[in-house]
Each structure stands twice: as structure tokens, then as C-alpha cells.
């Protein structure tokens, strides 16, 4: 018959520097504590985290020498993990963690701002088509439109660069847009993303 060393004795050994005693204690109560935590949180990763935090507290308390041995090692450890479970739920209430399920994935609702490959292709195609349409405009209107849209210049800068007044530049821009719309309508071109 195998003789089982009492928890209290292992705790005493551990406090006096026997690291092996801790390993025995953890392995002895692993199943009980893990099942207890898991029954409350129902998440493997969270269980591992809480189990780890529980024993970190146990180790610190024992090394600090502030544990009073009353033959209740397991209830004490369970109480620590119970408190950590409560902390976990409190924290989750403040900052709810949303995880997708099999039916619903959060990433189908939120995504990054980057276009996917298909949308990028469509956008490139529209840009190319538009550039060709701009080429159809009279030179003075084309010049203003390119400076404003593609070179992002202000109307003041356009006026200085082309040697016309700001009002004239504004007028050319307006006519450029009107004419672009006319070309698009006339040729039944669909520009959409």
C-alpha cells in the first residue's frame, strides 16, 4: 500500500525549500481544482489562466510565510480560485468579451479598411475608365480637373499655376464635371464600386 503524505506535511516541506513538494501538491489537486474552475467558466483557456493565477497566489503566500496551516490546504486553494473566478466575471462584465460562434463570426461584421482583392480590382478598373473619360474633356477643363482631383491642389494654387482667376478655375471645374457626366450618360457607362 502506498503511503500518501499529508498536504500539511507537503506544505511544510515546500516552505522549507523542497520544490518537489509543490509538484506533488499541484498534481494531487489538479483534477479537483481544474474541474471546479471549468464548471464555472466553461472555457479551457480561462480555466488554465485561473488555475495558474491561483497557484501563483499560493506560491507567493507560502514563500512569504503568511500561510497558517490548519490542515485545510485544498479548501484554501479552492477559495482563492473561487475569488479569481468572481474577479474574472466582474472583469468580463465591465469589458464583455465577444467571441464568435459556429453560426456567427464577428469578423464577418467588422473588417479592416483595406479592400479585398475583388473590390481593389473594380476600383482600379474604375480609376482607369475615369482617367480615359477625363482625356475626352477640353484641355482647359481637363487641366483644372487634374490639378484639383489628382494633384489635390487648391483653387488658389490652380489659379496661380494656370494664370487664370479663381472664379475662372472654379467655372472650368464645374464644366469639367458637367461634361464628364454628359459623356458617361451618353455612352451608358456604369461606374460603381
Amino acid at each position, binding site marked *: 500500500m502506498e503511503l500518501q503524505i499529508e498536504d500539511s506535511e507537503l506544505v511544510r516541506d515546500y516552505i522549507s525549500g523542497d520544490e518537489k513538494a509543490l509538484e506533488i501538491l*499541484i498534481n494531487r489537486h*489538479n*483534477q479537483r481544482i481544474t474541474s471546479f474552475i*471549468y464548471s464555472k467558466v466553461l472555457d479551457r483557456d480561462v*480555466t*488554465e489562466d485561473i488555475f*495558474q493565477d491561483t497557484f501563483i497566489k499560493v506560491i507567493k503566500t507560502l*514563500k*512569504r*510565510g503568511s500561510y497558517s496551516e490548519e490542515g485545510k490546504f485544498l479548501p484554501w486553494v479552492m477559495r482563492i480560485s473561487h475569488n479569481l473566478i468572481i474577479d474574472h466575471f466582474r472583469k468580463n462584465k465591465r469589458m464583455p468579451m465577444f467571441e464568435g460562434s459556429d453560426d456567427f463570426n464577428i469578423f464577418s461584421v467588422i473588417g479592416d479598411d483595406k479592400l479585398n482583392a475583388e473590390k481593389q480590382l473594380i476600383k482600379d478598373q474604375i480609376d482607369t475608365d475615369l482617367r480615359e473619360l477625363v482625356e475626352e474633356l477640353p484641355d482647359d477643363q481637363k487641366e483644372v480637373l487634374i490639378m484639383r482631383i489628382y494633384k489635390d491642389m487648391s483653387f488658389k494654387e490652380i489659379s496661380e499655376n494656370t494664370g487664370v482667376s479663381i472664379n475662372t478655375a472654379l467655372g472650368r471645374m464645374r464644366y469639367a464635371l458637367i461634361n464628364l457626366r454628359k459623356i458617361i450618360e451618353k455612352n451608358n457607362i456604369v461606374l460603381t464600386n
Partner: protein
Amino acid sequence: MEKIYTNYPEKAEFSKVCPKTINFLLSFSQALYEVEYKDLRFETFLN
């Protein structure tokens, strides 16, 4: 026949943390060192 089994076998089977967690705790314990200076206590980690 299949009805006697749980729909969530993964959840039902989880009863022990992985050895990695235990190894971490053992290493943590070995590295943790308490230093006392006058009335103060410091926690240090030895590598």
C-alpha cells in the same frame, strides 16, 4: 446509440490543466525569491 454521448465531448473531458501550465508554475516557484530588508519584503526572480 449516439444519444448517450454528450454533444460537447471537449467540454466534458477537460479535467486537468496541461503540463505546460504546471511546468510554468514549478519554474515560477523555483525562480521566486523573497528578500527581507529591515521591515520590508521584496520579491525577486532568479534566473
